[in-house]
């Protein structure tokens, strides 16, 4: 008999994602993804000055704040018809690149790693052996036997005190954990090291954005950080970038490869069917032609055919969401009319709408970007993907999975990071020529429409604006998490995470670490606690997850 499991809230930073699954014979047979928080930014923005929109929208989140600011200024840039100067484009790209580096390091280590790494098992490790393994794969510093011994001693103190702190109440000892104790110890040491590194990486935003989170240097028509385009500040950015890339090359990538090697079975679990990437990092004013990561759509996993993206084919469905009506609208004409709240998986069960492209659910994010780039023959992506597949000895089909999604995130971190070097040098070249322009003036039109399509760490992000009487008449955000974690549409097609969960093995419903693996691979950016409900006994199992 099928058993229902509810994981609510599921993620590790912000709450409000609820996953309900049906399990039969040790596998997930059906899944429902609910967002239990109402956003409402669209309503707040109505009647405001379009120039202020970005400051409001970047408050959509406390983690990836800049991405909403950028989507918004690009959307209003489009509406008022301004082309930003080259330096502004480069600075915006560099800040976006910094966002990717920061976000993906945090995701891999602090939001996802403990789904694969058993920190308690690390106590059994031999530090000398761990040091040898670490030194065989990477020249990373702090990997001598004494370093690992010190980390182990710190972990042991945590465990012996009975206060695991941030590692409390994990599913330690669960049979789904496959790493040897030494690899667990290396990963645990790097978990701690990554805490330090992410704080430094975040400083890149401070150089040209004044602060992180919620940067201050954007403006419709360009950027405002003109005074920071001096050798001291550019060099500071360069050094923070170098330090981060050192970590990516010597720690993140080797860890990804080491951990993935033990979980190759996850190369056939957690996959979806269709993929959408808006593309990112414009290399000139021409879009989408000049985008570093290309724009495209892939259907039925056919990497041989990448379709061009027509924004007119984007719709948002509300039939299973807590909004008025049951139709589907293009975001340019979108509505946000909250109406219901009763959670019923057979009817309406989420504050998220269900975005569809040409009527189909589309996975967005690192895997979608990497697949679209790979399918289009993007050289750096092809090289990196083929290298990883070869290293792990897995076929290209294994990318359509939880493992593929996690690997794609690391792959694009390296590709974007390496591209940033060129953008820094282009900025230097411009400044050398005496080109210090960072802003292009424009006139606010009486009425206009605009669209800003970005690809951000979690996936395809679009903002749409309609201006009337120089004020915001309508504003819609279609964010990556709605693409990935949204509910069923009017045609009852499940959203990507709902689809991905079907077939996921669950060894022990009381400790559903496998569900966490697939859901976390989408980087849902929420959570800290898990509740599991057993509908037979109506018992609620509560777990705090780290």
């Amino acid at each position, binding site marked *: 008999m099928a058993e229902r499991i509810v994981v609510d809230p599921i993620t590790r930073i912000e709450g409000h994602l609820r996953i309900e699954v049906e399990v039969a014979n040790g596998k997930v047979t059906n899944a429902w993804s609910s967002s239990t928080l109402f956003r409402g930014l669209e309503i707040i923005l109505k009647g405001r000055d379009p120039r202020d929109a970005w400051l409001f929208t970047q408050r959509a989140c406390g983690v990836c704040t800049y991405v909403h600011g950028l989507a918004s200024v690009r959307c209003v840039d489009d509406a008022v018809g301004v082309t930003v100067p080259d330096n502004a484009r480069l600075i915006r790209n560099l800040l976006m690149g910094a966002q990717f580096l920061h976000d993906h390091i945090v995701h891999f280590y602090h939001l996802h790693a403990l789904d694969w790494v058993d920190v308690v098992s690390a106590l059994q490790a031999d530090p000398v052996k761990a040091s040898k393994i670490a030194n065989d794969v990477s*020249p990373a*510093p*702090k990997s001598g036997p004494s370093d690992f011994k010190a980390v182990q001693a710190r972990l042991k103190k945590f465990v012996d005190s009975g206060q695991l702190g941030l590692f409390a109440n994990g599913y330690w000892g669960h049979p789904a954990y496959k790493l040897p104790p030494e690899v667990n110890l290396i990963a645990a040491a790097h978990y701690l*090291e990554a805490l*330090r*590194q992410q704080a430094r990486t975040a400083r890149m935003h401070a150089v040209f954005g004044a602060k992180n989170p919620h940067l201050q240097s954007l403006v419709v028509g360009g950027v405002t950080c003109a005074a920071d385009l*001096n*050798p*001291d500040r*550019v*060099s*500071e950015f*360069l*050094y923070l970038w*170098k*330090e981060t*890339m*050192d*970590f990516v*090359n*010597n720690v993140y990538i080797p860890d990804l490869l080491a951990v993935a090697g033990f979980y190759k079975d996850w190369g056939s679990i957690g996959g979806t069917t269709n993929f959408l990437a808006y593309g990112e990092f414009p290399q000139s004013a021409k879009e989408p032609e000049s985008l570093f990561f290309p724009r495209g759509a892939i259907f039925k996993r056919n990497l041989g055919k990448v379709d061009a993206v027509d924004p007119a084919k984007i719709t948002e469905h509300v039939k299973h969401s807590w909004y008025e009506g049951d139709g589907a609208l293009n975001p340019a004409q979108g509505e946000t009319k909250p109406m219901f709240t009763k959670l019923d998986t057979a009817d309406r069960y989420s504050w998220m709408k269900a975005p569809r492209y040409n009527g189909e659910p589309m996975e967005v994010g690192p895997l979608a970007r990497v697949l679209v780039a790979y399918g289009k023959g993007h050289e750096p992506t092809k090289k990196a993907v083929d290298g990883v597949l070869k290293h792990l000895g897995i076929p290209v089909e294994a990318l359509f999975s939880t493992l593929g999604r996690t690997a794609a995130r690391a792959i694009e971190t390296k590709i974007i990071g390496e591209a940033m*070097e060129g953008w820094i*040098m282009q900025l*230097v*070249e411009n*400044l*050398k020529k005496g080109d210090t322009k960072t802003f292009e003036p424009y006139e606010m039109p009486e009425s206009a429409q605009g669209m800003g399509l970005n690809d951000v760490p979690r996936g395809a992000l679009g903002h749409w604006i309609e201006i009337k009487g120089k004020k915001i008449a309508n504003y819609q955000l279609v964010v990556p998490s709605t693409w990935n974690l949204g509910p069923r549409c009017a045609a009852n097609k499940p959203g990507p995470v709902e689809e991905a969960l079907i077939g996921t093995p669950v060894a022990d419903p009381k400790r559903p670490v496998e569900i966490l693996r697939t859901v976390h691979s989408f980087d849902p950016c929420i959570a800290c606690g898990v509740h599991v409900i057993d509908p037979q006994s109506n018992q609620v199992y509560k777990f705090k997850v780290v």
Partner: protein
Amino acid sequence: MAPQKILVLGVGNVLLKDEGLGVHLVRRLEAAYDFSENVRLMDGGTLGLRLLDPIAQADHVIVIDAVQRGADPGTVQKMSADDLSKKVTFKNSIHQLDLVETLAYAEVLGQRPTCVIVGMEPLDIEPWGITLTPPVAANMKELEVLVLEEIQKAGGSWRLKAHAPQPFGEATDYVFGDSCGNHRD
């Protein structure tokens, strides 16, 4: 007794032409030589006070930097840290916090290592450029030899790598490698 810990610290801003010569040289040493365990190379860039920790952990520091004393551009210079006074325009005050101050902090902490400074008179330290000027590039080999001597004097040793890259030529661009230095503490 364990050999003393030697830190070879290249500092400067690579975006200001000759100002980055110390960084250029440290990158060259990383690429061309294997050093004994007690030698640590570091691209210190413009990290300023963040260099305090690696400096305080060393017994002896060899700083490589541009030194402006009014000599002919490309003149190789050597001095002890004690010779430094504010009269020497160390780094031309471009860094947000200069090395002299960082050494002073190390002293206050009671962890100041012995220190020698080697470098060259720069020709051009104006923005922007990642390439050394010809008189400085021409003497990089001489500076490299001097640094290696200093390492040996302090108790370190080295071996030329089997596939060491060519020594500096005239047009020396800053190179970004896979390894970006070891400045994580």
